[in-house]
């Protein structure tokens, strides 16, 4: 009880200190936010920084915006023309230096940069005033911006620090806006909609009218169909009514890069709707018709020349009737394979696959606490091979993944992540102690028999003793090898993961069927369904 009271007291003091610490800066800016136009890493983005002032900023005072040091890049060309300074909804004039009515903008470029806005000598900001600072192409007051701050290259949460000062550089307010930077999922995608746009004031195919808005009840409906009473049909000079413009078919075109001359499979809501072949430059185009208006999920996957399968590249978007939606820039990540799944330290590990010819392949080897990045060029048929020296890696488990880059803007996402281990060559790999091709109860019995000894077969991690770590290795392979019976959730083993497998999964739902229970947690459930959908081929 005494201990609990002590803990409670500590909590109260701690939180008191925490809030006191926050308020120790006299005041903190409130309602602080930074909205960025894209959360993707390593891309130029527009910032919209909002905050409410709590301590009045006198004339010639300063507002300093500092992105987290070492992560964001402020281009040297960024200046006052790329900024908007909006006070209570009213844009204030900006220049390179402050005057009586113009506030000055000073930019320190680089990765440790900052932007300082010095208020005009005739401008002061009161407590409670709302400030919006736009930085980037979204700046439109006086000038339209053309420079943007570049996001960090590494995913994570980052701070944008905002401080206000008086003219003597005494700190008045401060606050941090947090933003998240993520891996781009759909890098370089371009969406193009060809067809009528209701509400643009132009009567296009499929539209009976277009009054420049999408309001119903004004004679022209929200979907650009005439509302009763219909207007008299327009008459051509010759007296004949003009022929209606030809309707645009509702279709979707998916185009991008796969692997040279590979078969590319397109899925619509999980079902195969089209197979096309990529050309020798790995470019493909798939056209999907018979669509109505609504939200669809389209998937694209392919197999390289050695039947290595890509991930399924998935896109969910709304298709409007009588339009053609073209999605270009789909870039399937490189396929990847390892020469071996277990190597001795210092041994060369071949990491290879196929991608777009002559593209640059970035291979990332993940190790606990570090990441090794290697770049190589794919050859004329897109084949790439990295002879990776495992000497710098510690013994243990590691992961590897790869992505390709055709140009600065055209980068694929990462594909499948493969795992490998570094250690002495194992006498009994995959904890198959009796070498019967399975890791099961018999192997467990043998492990128990050798428990505490230095048996080199049972000592899976080669630490000199058969112990819990070896048991853990065995458990890993137990799962993996059972799953090997039905890899990739292909329950009926027909080489595809599709509706048949889904039916079988439902059949086994809630049971402990070893084949359907992909994660071997003892029950066929949502987790196994999730694994199935990951491997879905249609």
């Amino acid at each position, binding site marked *: 009880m005494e201990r609990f009271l002590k803990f409670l007291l500590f909590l109260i003091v701690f939180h008191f200190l925490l809030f006191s610490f926050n308020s120790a800066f006299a005041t903190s800016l409130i309602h602080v936010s930074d909205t960025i136009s894209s959360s993707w890493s390593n891309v130029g983005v527009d910032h919209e920084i909002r905050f409410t002032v709590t301590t009045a900023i006198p004339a010639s005072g300063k507002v300093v915006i500092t992105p987290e040091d070492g992560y964001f890049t402020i281009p040297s060309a960024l200046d006052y023309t790329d900024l908007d300074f909006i006070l209570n909804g009213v844009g204030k004039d900006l220049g390179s230096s402050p005057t009586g009515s113009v506030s000055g903008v000073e930019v320190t470029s680089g990765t440790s940069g900052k932007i300082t806005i010095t208020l005009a000598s005739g401008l002061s900001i009161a407590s409670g005033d709302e400030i919006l600072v736009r930085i980037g192409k979204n700046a439109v007051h006086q000038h339209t911006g053309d420079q943007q701050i570049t996001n960090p290259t590494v995913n994570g949460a980052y701070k944008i620090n905002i401080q206000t000062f008086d003219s003597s550089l005494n700190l008045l307010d401060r606050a941090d806006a947090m933003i998240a930077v993520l891996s781009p999922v759909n890098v370089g995608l371009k969406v193009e909609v060809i067809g009528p746009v209701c509400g643009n004031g132009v009567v296009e195919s499929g539209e009976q009218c277009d009054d420049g808005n999408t309001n119903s009840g004004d004679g022209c409906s929200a979907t650009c169909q005439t509302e009763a009473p219909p207007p008299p049909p327009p008459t051509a000079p010759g007296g004949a009514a003009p022929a209606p413009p030809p309707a645009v078919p509702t279709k979707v075109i998916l185009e991008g890069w796969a692997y040279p001359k590979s078969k590319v499979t397109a899925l619509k809501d999980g079902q195969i709707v089209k197979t096309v072949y990529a050309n020798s430059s790995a470019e493909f185009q798939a056209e999907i018709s018979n669509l109505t208006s609504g939200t669809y999920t389209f998937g694209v996957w392919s197999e390289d020349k050695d039947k290595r399968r890509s991930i399924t590249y998935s896109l969910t978007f709304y298709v409007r009737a009588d339009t053609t939606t073209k999605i270009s820039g789909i870039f399937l990540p490189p396929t990847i394979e390892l020469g071996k799944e277990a190597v001795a330290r210092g041994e060369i590990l071949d990491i290879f696959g196929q991608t777009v010819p002559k593209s640059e392949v970035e291979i990332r080897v993940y190790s606990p606490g570090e990441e090794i990045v290697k770049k190589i060029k794919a050859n004329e048929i897109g084949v790439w091979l990295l002879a990776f020296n495992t000497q710098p890696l510690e013994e243990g488990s590691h992961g590897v993944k790869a992505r390709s880059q055709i140009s600065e803007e055209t980068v694929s996402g990462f594909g499948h992540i493969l795992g490998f281990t570094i250690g002495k060559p194992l006498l009994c790999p995959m904890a198959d102690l009796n070498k019967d091709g399975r890791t099961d109860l018999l192997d467990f019995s043998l492990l128990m028999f050798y428990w505490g000894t230095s048996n080199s077969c049972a000592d899976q991690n080669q630490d000199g003793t058969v112990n819990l770590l070896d048991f853990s290795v065995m458990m890993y392979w137990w799962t993996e090898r059972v799953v090997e019976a039905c890899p990739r959730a292909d329950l009926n083993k027909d080489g595809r993961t599709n509706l*048949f497998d889904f039916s079988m999964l439902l059949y086994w739902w809630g049971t402990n069927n070893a084949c359907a229970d992909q994660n071997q947690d003892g029950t066929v459930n949502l987790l196994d369904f999730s694994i199935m959908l990951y491997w879905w081929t249609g």
Partner: protein
Amino acid sequence: MFKQKDIFPILICVFSLSFLVFGSAKAAVLYLEPSTGEYRLGETLIEKIRIDTEGECINVVGVDLNFSQDTLEAVDFSSGSSILTLWVKTPYIDQESGLISFAGGVAGGYCGEIPGALTESNLLGRIIFKVKGRSDLTLEEGRFGEEQLWARIKFLDSTQVFLNDGKGTPARLTKKGALFPISFKEIIEEPLKDSWQEEIEKDNIPPEEFSPGITKDPSVFNGKYFLSFSTTDKQTGVNYYEVAEQKRIAFMALGEKVWEAALTTYLLKDQGLRSIVAVKAVDKAGNERIEVITPKIGWQDVLPWAILALIIGLISRWIVKKLKLKKTPKKSLRDLTGQENEKF
């Protein structure tokens, strides 16, 4: 300053602080739309369940929702234009306990909306509620009384979202429910619109085309043939499926189709696969899409016809023969008689 045993509260505080600091780290957000507003008694409320994946790729969503069963009546669930295309747990409404649950997935995963794409495409489903009064409160009490009625919808802790990483990793999840005050005002002045009914009346598009398939596997249904199918409806959503097996002789179907309710898996009655199999998907508006699997013509189909043709041929031949036989003796007799006459 602190003894070793005091390190525990410090760790707790550091942990709670780190949670405060990093609490805004990426997590999928499940939310309801609308989440505020005032609704009138008898009004239809179409509640959209949406997801913001915050840059993550997800593939399975299992939702359990609780709603105020005394002020809301869940009358329907629409999967129209849902990003979920395969349903392991079809939407289930339990009005008595105020529960709605469903679970579905997106093959290949859903990685959020595409920049530049038209309209929002993060819908999981829509629940159609009717706003109702509380049984212990009369209309007068509600209209003039001081008691404010509320309708609350919230996600239960059992709601789950999984990442599309091939491992079934649960996604970090933020859940945002909805709370509405119920108004008794203007109940008489203005007729209430049933927007769901209007939507149903407008829907004249059948569910999407689909390709049912027949297969068998030793591990399921004792190795018997079964049917698999699934489709979507982009407007009001698929309501139900039906399957009919129709016997046939060669190219001819026999009798009328007898439809039977089915889910996405159906154990075939005709294990000989000689029947025409039809699968009907019906949306909430009653629009139907029927896909048919016609088995290939095999020797079993041709044989009865061949036998019949053979029998008919034989009978015809026999009849012709008989006719000939009937004619021939007369002629022969006459001829014979003639010959004989000539002879004699």
